[in-house]
């Protein structure tokens, strides 16, 4: 095929990718958008395959079949609650592919084909791809709560070590450019970047994972764009930078929702020992424990009910019970809404996906900024597995989470907090919400608590 036609096909694919993402701006057009994006991919791949000369074709077909089957299997078999892990793993695979393409080009390309620009791009894809690969796998291990990865872990002098590794990476990148005939420098660079991926993600805690997953998503796009610079390929550059932009925007939204800078999320930690009362001072004598029967009575005449879901809902797999509760209350004439904090869960939009899975209409999933002004008119708010995002201390100057936007459930007429115990959330600080006059603690497993509640309401 004439190269002009290939490039025109790539242009069409790029436009379809952009339209595809544009489709995601509304739930109604989103499915079509995703399909346009998939068609774009199919188009880009189908015009590329016939370009292969020699015996590469068999390898490509074998790779397409193997990867296609694994991808098909993963997408069918993974539970919705495990979506953050799956996205993390996919990010890692994208990063790995970029490293490998760089390696193949370096080892197989003739020197006339690989100039300085390509060599710099090859080094960049080794660095970004390497960080993405192992960074994503560590993120996966943390999200999966695998032992040894779950808790944040940093070596003493971690920052200095990271800085040294970064300098080492630059030195190796210069070596790659100077002496492309020897691929060892390239693999050393990719290896070092991978280790950097581990040491960068290891110190980050579970609740900061939405930021990390979004950032790695951005990296996987930038790695693809770097590969585009290696191969002088426009469709790679365009789609890679779209993904890079998408990840950066999400990262930014997540950081804002925690009132923390990206640097603070990546390298800092919340200092829970800062000013603030101890758990005993906050809770002593003020905690009112409640039961399913009592909450059911509260709900009997409630007109407006608001549920604040958090990661605890995903852990307890409580979403199906929540749906039963939602349907029951709606049938009784109440309005039930969900107040969703941007960082609730382990990835951007995590709660929305879980609730959509159980058929909660998406117009009932209300963003924090939209629901906060009207919370005074909510009769009963149910906090289900959320903690720091409803901590009124965030309004105080001296709190470790000062300035973090929260869902103002304390303004609701009654707040019911479903929680196993009074243990603190990720920030490690007590939550005065639990001790408020209008708060009731409903201790127990999220799923069972909601199920009991449904049973009690039916008996009213």
């Amino acid at each position: 095929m004439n190269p002009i036609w290939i490039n025109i096909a790539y242009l069409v694919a790029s436009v379809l990718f952009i339209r595809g993402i544009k489709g995601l701006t509304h739930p109604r057009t989103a499915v079509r958008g995703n399909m346009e994006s998939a068609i774009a991919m199919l188009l880009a791949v189908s015009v590329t395959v016939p370009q292969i000369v020699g015996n590469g074709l068999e390898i490509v077909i074998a790779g397409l079949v193997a990867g296609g089957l694994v991808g098909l299997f993963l997408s069918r078999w993974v539970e919705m609650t495990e979506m953050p892990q799956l996205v993390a793993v996919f990010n890692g695979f994208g990063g790995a592919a970029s490293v490998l393409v760089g390696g193949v080009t370096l080892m197989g390309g003739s020197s006339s084909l690989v100039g300085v620009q390509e060599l710099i791009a090859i080094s960049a894809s080794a660095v970004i791809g390497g960080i993405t690969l192992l960074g994503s796998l560590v993120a996966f291990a943390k999200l999966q709560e695998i032992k040894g990865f779950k808790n944040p872990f940093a070596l003493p002098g971690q920052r200095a070590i990271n800085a040294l590794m970064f300098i080492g990476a630059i030195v190796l990148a210069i070596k790659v450019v100077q002496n492309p005939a020897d691929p060892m420098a390239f693999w050393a660079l990719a290896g070092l970047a991978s280790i950097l991926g581990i040491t960068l993600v290891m110190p980050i805690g579970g609740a900061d994972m939405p930021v990390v997953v979004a950032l790695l998503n951005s990296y996987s796009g930038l790695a693809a764009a770097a590969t585009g610079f290696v191969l002088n390929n426009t469709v790679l550059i365009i789609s890679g930078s779209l993904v890079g932009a998408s990840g950066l925007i999400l990262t930014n939204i997540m950081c804002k929702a925690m009132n923390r800078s990206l640097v603070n999320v990546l390298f800092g930690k919340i200092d829970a020992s800062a000013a603030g009362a101890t758990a005993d001072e906050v809770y002593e004598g003020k905690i009112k424990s409640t039961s399913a029967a009592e909450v059911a009575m509260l709900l009997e005449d409630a007109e407006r009910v608001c549920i604040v879901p958090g990661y605890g809902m995903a852990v307890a797999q409580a979403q199906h019970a929540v749906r039963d509760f939602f349907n029951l209350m709606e049938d009784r004439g109440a309005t039930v809404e969900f107040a969703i904090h941007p960082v609730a869960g382990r990835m951007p939009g995590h709660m929305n996906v879980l609730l959509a899975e159980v058929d909660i209409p998406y117009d009932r999933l209300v963003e924090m900024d939209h629901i906060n002004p009207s919370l005074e008119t909510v009769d009963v708010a149910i906090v289900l597995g959320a903690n720091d995002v409803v901590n009124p201390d965030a309004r105080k100057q001296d709190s470790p989470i000062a300035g973090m936007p929260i869902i103002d459930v304390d303004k609701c007429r009654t707040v019911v907090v479903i929680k196993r115990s009074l243990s603190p959330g990720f920030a490690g600080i007590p939550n005065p919400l639990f001790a408020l006059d209008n708060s009731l603690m409903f201790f127990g497993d999220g799923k069972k608590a909601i199920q009991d509640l449904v049973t009690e309401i039916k008996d009213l």
Partner: protein
Amino acid sequence: MELVLLLTIFVLAIFVGVEIITKVPPTLHTPLMSGSNAISGITLVGAIVSAGLVSTTVTKVLCFLAVALAMINVVGGYLVTHRMLSMFRKKD
């Protein structure tokens, strides 16, 4: 192709990306991530192009892995996004 030309495309595409993606509502942030993740599987095209360069066994294995990993990203990413988005559509 000229480096400056490629850089121009890169920078403009980032701006296009920022413009559209800021309009994606939080409800769809997870599908946006998995969908854009599938798009980043475009490295697949790069992996296929690199197949024209393989000669030794090592490069053949690397190329196979690159194609397979990128293909997992593409197929898995699109299908899982579709699965999620279908849940959002049901209520229309």
